[in-house]
């Protein structure tokens, strides 16, 4: 049976050379980082005039909150925004510089050996949303038209599918174009759904419970924002992976409103009046200065350089 498998032609695409080594490490007792439903609540819904996206603002590294106020609603095009769960939720790396501590945002304590695997994954992730946003811009220049949501959808899903689920992005994509308002969910393996309301992340069940109870077609803008806020709050208070504040993005024909920190339902509960002092505890015992190089003084008025 083993001989038969060896005789089959290589399948092409991904190389799994490290799998045997990873198995060996797991047998030796190393805990493999598993890709759980990631600590986030993201939602989207379609209302009368367009789309509303919502997200919480907590980024976790295992049981610790790494960022109390991160941005999970990313820009794709002027009329299209995308919420990301998992490493995709690390906006700071998507828009700015990325650093090593943001690697484990998808909620795992990553041992050093896996960081190489992870960093490849994470760099792909970071480049990914930025890349699709840039591709859309080039497409706009090429066609001379406003981007359509289905275009962004196809670009995202084909990229994710080609990485066979290794790019850990669970997205809620929403926008309004000439064909109307659209809302889609995209899973790490590349499958998509088109829905009137959607939730993703570890708080998705809590948020979906609110949507299933209260959603109806033809909501007004204020009703929609209120419902999205309720759904995100449900995720924030009932899911430990989600927390802090509510971010909202309202997209309508020709207009978008990014309501950063629309709700702040979690203020700090206690601040001591007297405050705390942190006196310098490490005393200098000895100072020794060793010059490494002699100071050379340059005096002006030397010989002029020869031609």
């Amino acid at each position, binding site marked *: 049976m083993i001989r038969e498998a060896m005789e089959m032609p290589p399948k092409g695409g991904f190389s799994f050379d490290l799998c045997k080594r990873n198995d060996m490490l797991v*047998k030796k007792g190393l805990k493999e980082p598993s890709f759980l439903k990631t*600590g986030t609540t993201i939602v989207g819904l379609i209302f009368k005039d367009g789309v509303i996206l919502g997200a919480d603002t*907590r980024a*976790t590294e295992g*049981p*610790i*909150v790494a960022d*109390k106020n991160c941005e999970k609603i990313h820009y794709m095009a002027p009329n299209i925004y995308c919420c990301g769960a998992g490493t995709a939720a690390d906006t700071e790396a998507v828009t700015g510089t990325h650093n090593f501590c943001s690697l484990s945002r998808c909620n795992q304590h990553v041992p050093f050996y896996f960081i190489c695997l992870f960093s490849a994954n994470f760099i792909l992730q970071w480049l990914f949303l930025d890349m699709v946003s840039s591709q859309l811009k080039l497409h706009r220049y090429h066609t001379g038209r406003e981007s359509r949501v289905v275009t962004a959808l196809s670009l995202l899903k084909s990229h994710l599918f080609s990485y066979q689920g290794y790019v850990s992005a669970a997205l809620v994509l929403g926008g309004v174009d000439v064909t109307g308002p659209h809302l889609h969910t995209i899973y790490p393996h590349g499958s998509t759904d088109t829905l009137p309301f959607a939730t993703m992340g*570890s708080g998705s069940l809590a948020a979906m419970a609110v949507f299933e109870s209260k959603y109806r077609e033809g909501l007004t803008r204020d009703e929609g924002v209120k419902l999205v806020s309720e759904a995100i709050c449900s995720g*924030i*208070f*009932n*899911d*430990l*992976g*989600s*927390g*802090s504040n509510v971010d909202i993005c309202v997209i309508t024909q020709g207009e978008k409103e990014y309501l950063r920190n629309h709700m702040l*339902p*979690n203020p*700090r*509960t*206690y*601040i*001591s009046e*007297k405050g*705390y002092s*942190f*006196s310098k*505890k*490490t*005393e200098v*015992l000895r100072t020794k200065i060793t010059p490494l190089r002699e100071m050379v003084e340059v005096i002006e008025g030397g010989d002029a350089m020869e031609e």
Partner: protein
Amino acid sequence: MTKQQANWSPYDNNGGTCVAIAGTDYCVIAADTRMSSGYNILTRDYSKIIQLVDTSVLASSGFQADVRALQKVLAAKHLQYQYQHNKQMSCPAMAQLLSNTLYYKRFFPYYAFNVLGGLDREGKGCVFTYDAVGSYERVGYSSQGSGSTLITPFLDNQLKSPGPLLLPARDAVTPLSESEAIDLVKTCFASATERDIYTGDKLEILILNASGTRVEYMELRKD
């Protein structure tokens, strides 16, 4: 032939954090009231603290089923002691009893991270800190549970002696008053709640002193 791994664990971690601080004539024991399992909250209003004797209070985080069983065993043992010796157990005696009880189950431990606080026979505050199998030590303050890694460095900074390299060795900073200790505990928990997902909801504080036991509550972040 690889060894078959268990696909079921008898333990679960219900999260939570406990802190205790001992003073010259008082003891402050505090714990949050959140009970969780995985990413879910089971209840926001569960007390991890039990008063075993007038002068001994036990706070435990970890697996609450084991904690509850441990509390029952200790209460029963204390009752027997009272019948046999015609007096209440002192805090150091209770500390030793707890250590022995935990070690009896050395090979199937109680998944409980304990902090025992109280007043000794002289009326001074005492705090005993434990690991899961009964190793214990009398200390001036302690923290156990999911938020302990966040709280202990702060308490070390505020309560411990400055720089170990200093000679002559200086003792801890000015001894805390009862209200200062309570303020410190509230700050610890408010801060731990910000960064630890398993700590939050409500804080329960028990203060033991010569005039008896007092309870205080404080709201914490619920997210």
